[in-house]
């Protein structure tokens, strides 16, 4: 049984250490990203990433293969992030926002600075747009998989991505 990211699910279910190390190395940044885009706090995102990894390690035996392994993992990560937010009843603070960037014309900025600007503005979007846009730009995620991950309809995903981009464009000026 092979997955698109070339994992042997049978070995994962048997608790193979090597396979899990491969899995960890492949997914750690993706899981971290989803959670970070939900909770917007590096320390919390790291702790939650480890919790999700543990959850996957514990629950992999229950994975039936109805969805792709990646979608299943992203869904766990997203739900874990959301329930953390609900549990802590915390609103996302916007620490990174640096308004000095807005005054400069985007063409004069280096690539890294542009990325920094977009990243900071991305975090100002509502959580659902942030996550939808993030997932959309993961290498292998379709609308259907994003819908599965976020537990919403495919049409809603398209709306979130479209509105997210529009809001992002407004936030960063005439970037495109």
């Amino acid at each position, binding site marked *: 049984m092979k997955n698109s990211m070339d994992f042997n699910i049978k070995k994962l279910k048997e608790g193979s250490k090597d396979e*899990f190390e491969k899995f*960890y*190395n492949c997914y*750690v*940044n*993706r899981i*971290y*990203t989803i959670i*970070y885009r939900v909770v917007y706090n*590096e320390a919390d*995102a*790291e*702790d939650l*990433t*480890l*919790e999700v*990894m*543990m*959850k996957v*390690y*514990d629950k992999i035996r229950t994975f039936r293969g109805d969805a792709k392994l990646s979608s299943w993992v992203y869904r766990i990560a997203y739900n874990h992030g959301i329930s953390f937010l609900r549990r802590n009843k915390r609103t996302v603070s916007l620490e990174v926002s640096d308004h000095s960037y807005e005054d400069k014309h*985007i063409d004069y900025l280096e*690539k890294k600075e*542009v*990325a920094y600007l*977009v*990243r900071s503005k*991305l975090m100002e979007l509502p959580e659902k747009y942030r996550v939808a*846009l*993030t997932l*959309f*730009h*993961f290498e292998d995620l379709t609308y259907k998989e994003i819908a599965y991950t976020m537990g919403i309809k495919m049409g809603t995903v398209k709306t979130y991505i479209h509105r997210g*981009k529009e809001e*992002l*464009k407004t936030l960063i000026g005439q*970037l*495109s």
Partner: protein
Amino acid sequence: MELDNILKSIAIEEASPDLVYRWKMNLMARKAARRKTSLWPYIAFPLLFSGVCYYIVAFKENILEYFMTDRFAWVMERISYSLSQFVDSGNFHTWSIVLSLTLAVISLIWYFATDLRRDSAPIRF
């Protein structure tokens, strides 16, 4: 620069490198917590207990026949007499078996109950 390209380039954040170390430590801790205790004492001890009960019965049956020569025999007789008083009171064979089985069942329940509790234990970081 196209917004989609920028978004693609920043889609995946870099987690801190020490996450790998923390993950491995957590995994080891989880494996240690899940290590099952051995099942054999839960089976062996009740059997041993029933063996001891059987030995007491055999001892009672044979001691008077073979050791009635001196003071030692008198001590042993007293001991065996006391034992026989205990052993002959009621149906000792039946009760020893019942007690052994009860102990075995309680041991197994204890074993599997603690096993379940281990599985549902919260993850500690």
